């Protein structure tokens, strides 16, 4: 409770200069100039959020719930939806299970009558549960769904999480140029839809950049010993090692690759985008290149403000990309409600689709015509145990 109050005070303190100095750079999430104050909203606007708050995916779901809580607290404190109007969130736990996600969506949409939904955490849950929102005409925004084809489910389905197909091509293009790559080896997990989809995009991007794939090898989730695969791959003497893996496996792969004597660059997808990977692989992480939608070292002013607010609210915990996207998602939803000046689901949907150039911790955010996110991703390289933007490192040399 004390921390909550402290966080709010911090938010207000940061707000004051922003309100007074309107012409300066946007320092804090706040009143988007594009819209006027809403006048026709009811006292309470209720949205739903389906996150995996228990089970194997809970590390993401808990992070997302905390971020949404933070955003909603700020939104209500600012009276973003108008005087006397409160935004409420009803959470439902899907535990990473498709059946529970369906039950959660049904409950939120049909029983609790929410006007919009954030989540669910996993893409597979989204494929199961989002059609229910679509059929009921309730907008649903994925804040961590990165699989291909999410928004194809219907015009009420949105997402603010850049799919790998939007991040990886840029990563490969920049890495290829920075490192003059011609030959790589690829290691990927083939029993997880995230890592295998990432692999698909890596292959396409590598071919598009005329980089030859010397060898490929697979591993399974939960594997801890990659020496066999690494021996094979490194034996082909690649210029870089491209891996599509989740954080736990990625850590081991990086450590074991270095133990096997490999000193070259390692390029990875979003699974590696976690400070834990760097911390736990220690010095081995030097030279790891990761493409991601958001990075804790991002120079965006709103990103810095978000990180401070999150740390203040949650005992110095550092937010991760899931938190940043969930936080932005909540703000996007509130903005749609505000700008549409309506708590009707259809109006919210239309308003959401029209959002263009919204300032957020992810950068300038827009939805494209397929309701997918558009903002500049970050390519980062690990130096000295922390992520730095790849371009910045280049210009220093």
């Amino acid at each position, binding site marked *: 409770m004390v921390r909550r109050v402290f966080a709010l005070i911090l938010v207000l303190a940061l707000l004051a200069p922003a309100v007074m100095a309107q012409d300066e750079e946007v320092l804090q999430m706040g009143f988007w100039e594009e819209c006027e104050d809403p006048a026709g909203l009811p006292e309470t606007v209720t949205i739903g959020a389906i996150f995996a*708050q*228990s*089970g194997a995916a809970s590390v993401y779901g808990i992070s997302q719930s905390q971020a949404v809580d933070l955003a909603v607290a700020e939104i209500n404190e600012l009276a973003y939806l108008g005087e006397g109007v409160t935004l409420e969130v009803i959470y*439902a*736990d899907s*535990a990473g299970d*498709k*059946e*529970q996600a*369906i*039950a959660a969506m*049904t*409950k939120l949409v*049909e*029983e609790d009558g929410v006007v919009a939904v954030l989540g669910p955490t996993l893409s*597979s849950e989204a*494929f*199961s549960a989002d*059609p*229910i929102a679509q059929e009921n005409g309730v907008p649903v925004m994925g804040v961590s769904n990165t*699989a291909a*084809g999410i928004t*194809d*489910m219907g015009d009420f389905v949105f997402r603010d999480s850049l799919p790998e197909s939007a991040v990886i091509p840029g990563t490969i293009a920049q890495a290829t140029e920075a490192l003059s790559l011609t030959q790589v080896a690829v290691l990927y*997990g*083939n*029993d*997880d*839809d995230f*890592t*295998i*989809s990432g692999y698909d995009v890596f292959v396409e991007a590598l071919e598009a950049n005329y980089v030859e794939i010397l060898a490929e090898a*697979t591993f399974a989730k939960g594997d801890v010993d990659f020496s066999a695969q690494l021996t094979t791959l490194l034996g082909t003497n690649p210029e870089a090692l491209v891996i599509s893996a989740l954080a736990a496996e990625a850590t081991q792969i990086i450590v074991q690759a270095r133990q096997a004597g490999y000193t070259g660059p390692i390029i990875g997808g979003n699974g590696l985008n976690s400070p834990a990977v760097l911390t736990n692989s220690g010095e081995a992480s030097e030279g790891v290149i990761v493409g991601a939608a958001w990075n804790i070292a991002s120079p965006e002013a709103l990103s810095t403000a978000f990180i401070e607010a999150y740390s203040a609210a949650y005992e110095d915990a550092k937010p991760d990309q899931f938190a940043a996207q969930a936080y932005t998602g909540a703000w996007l939803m509130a903005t749609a409600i505000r700008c549409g000046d309506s708590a009707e689901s259809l109006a919210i949907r239309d308003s959401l689709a029209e959002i263009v150039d919204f300032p957020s911790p992810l950068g300038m955010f827009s939805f494209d015509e397929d309701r997918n996110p558009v903002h500049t991703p970050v390519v980062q390289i690990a130096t000295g145990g922390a992520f730095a933007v790849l371009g910045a490192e280049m210009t220093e040399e």
Partner: protein
Amino acid sequence: MDSIIEFVITLLKPLGVTEPVFQFMLVSAILGLSIYLTLYTGMFSLASAGFMAIGAYFGVAATQFWHLPLGLGLIIGMLAAGLIAIPIGLPVLRLKDIYLAIATIGFGEVVNVVILNFDDVVAAILTAVQGERVRFRLIEGARGIKNIPRLTETQYLVFFLIIVGFFITRLHRSRFGRSMAAIRDDERAAANMGINVTYVKNIVFILSAMLAAAAGVFSAHLTRIITPDAYGFDRAVDILSFAVLGGTSTWVGPIVGGMTLTALPETLRAVNQYRGVFTGMVLLAVILFLPGGLVDPAGLRATIRRVRSRLRRAAESQGAT
């Protein structure tokens, strides 16, 4: 029929049950019956999860790749599982107890691996044949097959359960059903009495596989995306729990067990975080204190008899003083 179903769902609403939850409860009921058949014959088989996967994938192939209606998809899924059950059953059913359990768990894992790597294997073969690298994607491995239309209706599930229930009741009264029970009680004695043990066990195994496959087909067209990780060891243990919770002395038991365990996470949404703990405790409590499961007519009769005799003795001793 529709209105009866709606009425039942309305009754269950306060327990957190909505129509999709009810549909999953019915699917669990079918899975419970699948493992009931093998347990009734004394076989500790955990193969239902693997056959559920086979049913799901074949059923989806039928409706999505060959554009057949759900009914045909159901038949194809069940047939595929039944056919696969034959070469698996013949060698494996000779094993006993924990060895059979381990072998059937292994079967489930093998199904999982096949689904994950099918595309890659075909791609490798095509590459070898054509000389240049070929990429093949049909069942998509870990990515899962998505955008499956929701073809399963509650009526279908209810009808299916009624038909299967009817079939099982007839089975119990038949000679075949009595052979099943005889084998469970003492396999060697059953063999000595002239029962073809191998034949009976394999037929039961096939039937059980077909039921699990049917559940898979129905469930696939409810969750609208199927991924191989939904049919692994955890699912096999879940199915076993249905039978344990409900009790295996009647065929109603696993239905009750399956429906209860599926509804429990929804009912317990209020105590969100502790749902897993509750489920584990419920299971453990039933095993320890209600060894016959929730539906245990024999146990209930015994308890009633005990209570009645105790009351009688208390009354007699009162009268005597």
